[in-house]
């Protein structure tokens, strides 16, 4: 045994990313990848390791959301199948479209979603305990939006949660906490498939991945513990602010 293969820097970054990811229902890759690259890590190692850590974010504390009955597995799975189709379309049209225009369009979509969420909060007090689980409501519109989500994820490189949470909330009618918990489950599934692909190619640095994942699991558990205590209204405000920040980041990155 040649010393512990755990690097403390990725563990700390992982805790932060896991906390935010778990609280917001996103993967956390938008935190991990730029920070580690800025610290001098090789991006070819960072991307697969980041995917493994997203699995950690997804699974860390999933039992907490599950016990509260907040994870709507069936609605999520029904949408995710069409998201993969959207990704396929995105991968094959990537060379035909101008990335700057797409990023600008995505930023506008995120700003619109954030503004409409904030407006809805102002107009009416949301139910604190959420609506009944719905497996069929507005399924067709949800699937069309899921194709768009997969398409944009493949083209612009954003994680699924940023668009996934609003789709589950605004279109599928899940309350905000259920949308976040369900999205948290889904980002792990998508990332896991990516990890398996990288493992098959021998491109995963497992020690960096496990260092990050240790952090995201711990951060994910803490994020879930905080997340279940928040009201739907607070979750909506936090998520809307996160969307606004992400839209600015996308615009600034050009």
């Amino acid at each position, binding site marked *: 045994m040649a010393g512990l293969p755990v690097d403390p820097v990725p563990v700390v970054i992982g805790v932060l990313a896991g906390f935010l990811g778990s609280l917001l229902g996103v993967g956390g890759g938008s935190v991990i990848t730029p920070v580690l690259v800025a610290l001098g890590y090789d991006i070819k190692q960072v991307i697969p390791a980041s995917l493994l850590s997203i699995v950690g974010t997804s699974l860390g504390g999933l*039992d907490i959301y599950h016990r509260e009955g907040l994870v709507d*597995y069936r609605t999520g799975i029904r949408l995710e199948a069409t998201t993969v189709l959207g990704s396929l379309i995105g991968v094959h049209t990537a060379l035909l479209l101008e990335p700057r225009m797409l990023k600008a369009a995505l930023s506008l979509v995120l700003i619109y979603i954030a503004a409409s969420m904030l407006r809805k909060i102002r107009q009416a007090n949301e139910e604190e305990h959420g609506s009944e689980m719905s497996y069929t409501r507005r399924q067709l519109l949800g699937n069309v939006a899921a194709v768009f989500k997969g398409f944009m994820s493949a083209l612009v490189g954003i994680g699924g949660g940023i668009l996934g949470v609003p789709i589950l909330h605004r279109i599928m009618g899940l309350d905000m906490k259920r949308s976040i918990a369900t999205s948290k489950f889904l980002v792990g599934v998508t990332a896991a498939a990516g990890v398996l692909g990288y493992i098959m190619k021998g491109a995963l640095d*497992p020690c960096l991945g496990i260092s990050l994942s240790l952090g995201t699991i711990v951060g994910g558990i803490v994020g879930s513990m905080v997340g279940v205590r928040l009201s739907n209204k607070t979750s909506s405000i936090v998520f809307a602010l996160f969307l606004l920040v992400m839209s600015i980041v996308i615009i600034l990155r050009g």
Partner: protein
Amino acid sequence: MGRLTDRLVGGRVLFYLLLLLYIAGIVLGGRPCMGAAALVAVVPISLVLVVVVESARDRDWYTAVSGLVMVLLLIAVKAIA
């Protein structure tokens, strides 16, 4: 969800499985570390398959077929990409 999902997620089986895998990966390092990473990646996909089985049992064919298609597509796309 059904009892299988409850046992896998709600019963903390998942948490202890992950903890064991990570400890094994950290202590052993190297290739076993890669094995641990692979097993961790398999867990969410297994969870989808559990939901597929439970949906099929409840005759919720839309969810069951969507889940199967999703897993197959994801693996195929990532393996090819």
